[in-house]
């Protein structure tokens, strides 16, 4: 738990960030929306003195697709395919989170087997998201080869999930009460084989990247998000855990059957880019642990309730449901007016808050650091814009 945060600690920081020295010649630089390492369409308006950043104004909204507005014009079921497109890198987690939220509203019981499959698929999805992040982060700081190694491993996950869900990226696998397809023994064998494979590959990653002196130089002490900043901006996920706070929704308010699995919450103390890197790589290992347990324990049985409901009409009321996505706490706030169409669905996406902290982190760094920092907090722009 963080120590008592001082109100206004951050605003003091903001005041001092311009420094006392008079500014000679400064200029603005538009980084993005089209830029090789802005991960989609993020635009950072940098106020620069040479290569030193004085101030930053993130501009978002280029990928705004009005998901929340769409939700007001569709019934609960019809919003399903939207969910995996909010954050296309952890589409499975988002899709299942929405299912779980609506199930909670409708009080639908999910069969055991479906719960286990959900956990396996979510964790596979989390690993694939982290692997993609690993690759693109290295790409951002100039290492091209690790990107392809990570994508090779990620491809295995995509194939496993493609075989059962039929999609590679924007899964629409969950249904209220269960899933669309059951898994078979081949799926479980493939998953086991993947766990084994990735365990063998991780040491290679460490030798190629984690230990690399250039990589460490680029990341150590760069872009520190400390506990105060994290608390003030609502930073969650690996960025928060890298600041030393062991907060994980899977532990804080266990959903699904996450309370049945043993896993650690990896944390680091320094809060810099390297800490975030280490936390994510450690999380891959923890996800492998969860998958291993789930694959070993998965029971036989149905994947949908015996009598699935046909009309989904929750009683009037409100629900906030949170899960741990690959990037942090993803929350769904559903307001129902008792009809078949949601009154309002608000998606609380982790990258929104994580990116909002950038004005507190980026000043007094350099352009190269900006790339490393934005890369290390792992933003997914469509998720921010929704």
């Amino acid at each position, binding site marked *: 738990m963080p120590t008592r945060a001082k109100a206004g600690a951050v605003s003091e920081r903001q005041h001092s960030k311009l420094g006392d020295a008079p500014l000679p010649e400064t200029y603005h630089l538009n980084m993005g929306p089209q830029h090789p*390492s802005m991960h989609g369409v993020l635009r950072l308006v940098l106020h620069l003195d040479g290569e030193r950043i004085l101030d930053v104004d993130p501009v978002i909204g280029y990928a705004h697709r009005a998901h929340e507005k769409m939700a007001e014009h569709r019934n609960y079921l019809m919003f399903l395919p939207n969910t995996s497109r909010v954050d296309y890198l952890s589409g499975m987690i988002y899709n299942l989170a929405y299912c779980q939220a609506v199930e909670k509203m409708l009080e639908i019981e999910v069969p055991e087997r479906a719960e286990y499959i959900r956990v396996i698929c979510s964790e596979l999805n989390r690993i694939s998201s982290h692997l993609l992040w690993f690759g693109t982060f290295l790409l951002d*700081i*100039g290492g091209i080869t690790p990107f*392809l190694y990570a994508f090779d491993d990620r491809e295995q996950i995509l194939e496993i999930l493609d075989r059962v869900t039929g999609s590679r990226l924007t899964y629409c696998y969950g249904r209220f009460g269960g899933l669309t397809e059951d898994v078979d023994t081949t799926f479980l064998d493939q998953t086991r084989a993947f766990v084994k494979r990735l365990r063998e590959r991780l040491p290679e990653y460490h030798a190629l990247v984690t230990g*690399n002196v*250039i990589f460490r130089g680029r990341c150590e002490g760069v872009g520190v998000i400390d506990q105060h900043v994290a608390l003030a901006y609502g930073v969650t996920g690996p960025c928060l855990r890298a600041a030393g706070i062991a907060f994980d929704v899977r532990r804080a308010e266990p959903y699904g059957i996450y309370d049945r699995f043993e896993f650690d919450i990896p944390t680091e103390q320094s809060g810099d880019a390297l800490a975030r890197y280490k936390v994510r790589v450690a999380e891959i290992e923890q996800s492998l642990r969860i998958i291993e347990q789930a694959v070993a324990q998965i029971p036989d049985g149905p994947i949908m309730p015996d009598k699935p409901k046909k009309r989904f009409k929750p009683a009037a009321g409100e629900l906030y449901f949170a899960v741990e996505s690959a990037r942090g706490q993803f929350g769904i706030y559903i307001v129902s007016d008792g009809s078949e169409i949601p009154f309002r669905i608000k998606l609380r996406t982790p990258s929104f808050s994580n990116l909002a902290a950038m004005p507190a982190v980026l000043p007094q760094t350099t352009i190269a650091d900006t790339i490393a920092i934005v890369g290390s907090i792992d933003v997914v722009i469509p998720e921010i814009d929704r």
Partner: protein
Amino acid sequence: MFNQLFGNIWLVTLASGAVIMGFLTVNALFLVWLERKLSARFQRRLGPTEVGFAGTLQTLADAVKLLGKQLITPRNADKPLYHLAPVIVFMPVVVGVSLFPIDRQLMFVDLNVGLVLVFAFAGIGFIGIFMAGWGSNNKYALLGAMRAVAQNIAYEIPLILSALSVTLLARSMKLSAIVEAQSTLPYLLFQPLGAAIYLIGAVAETNRAPFDIPEAESELVAGFHSEYSGMRFAVFFLAEYSNMAIVSMVATTLFLGGYHGPWLPGYVWFFIKVYGLISLMMWFRWTFPRLRFDQLMSFAWTVLVPLSLANLMGTAVVLKVFRR
């Protein structure tokens, strides 16, 4: 050699220029192919396979495509600088190549200040890079140009200092004399530190990863050549790969004994060494992430410069003591 053939200095110059241009073009085409193939295999891909055997003609096809591309000049660019920059970047390379002894009898020009001339011409290229960055009227390009100049100044010093140690050993700045002095043992064995410093400096001089700061594509988009298209862009590329060849030729001449080697003819040894070094540089590029600009500079000024100075002093002292 050419002197005997022609006798007319203009004809000689013209012919040498043509041969060197031809060599540089083929060299760049080959190196681009090699880089793409090597990087692919490092990354467990296949690389180009379609055009020609194993994709060997792919770069030729790309060059033809680049020739056909529209040449775009940005509005508000400083036009003279913008247009002249690719030429200035490329021309010193042509002169540079002509100075190396490729074999015992194969050498375009043999000057007694050859080594100095090589570094002098290498320095000119950066003026072209700065012109390109300044003339483009683009902030990214300007940042890249500024980085390039700072980096060049920082890394030329250790580069030249380590080369100086070799001239102390060889007692000459004539490249052919330096190579002849290594007929028994290459200077790599006497100057391991100098060779290592030279290698690092050479990678930095050619703006290659992990020192590709001026064109860092993930930071500055493409740095100084952001605004260049078509053949102008290709000339920058040509210059980059030719520069790789030149720094490798210097390294071969100074540390690896040039054309000396058993069994095979001299020029074969020379090119084996040169392309071996180039492959090593490619291996670096496809393994390491990029340094940050300030780390790069502090590495040059706090590690490489003192080390190369120490190396030079040590060499001088040892020579004074042991060599009569």
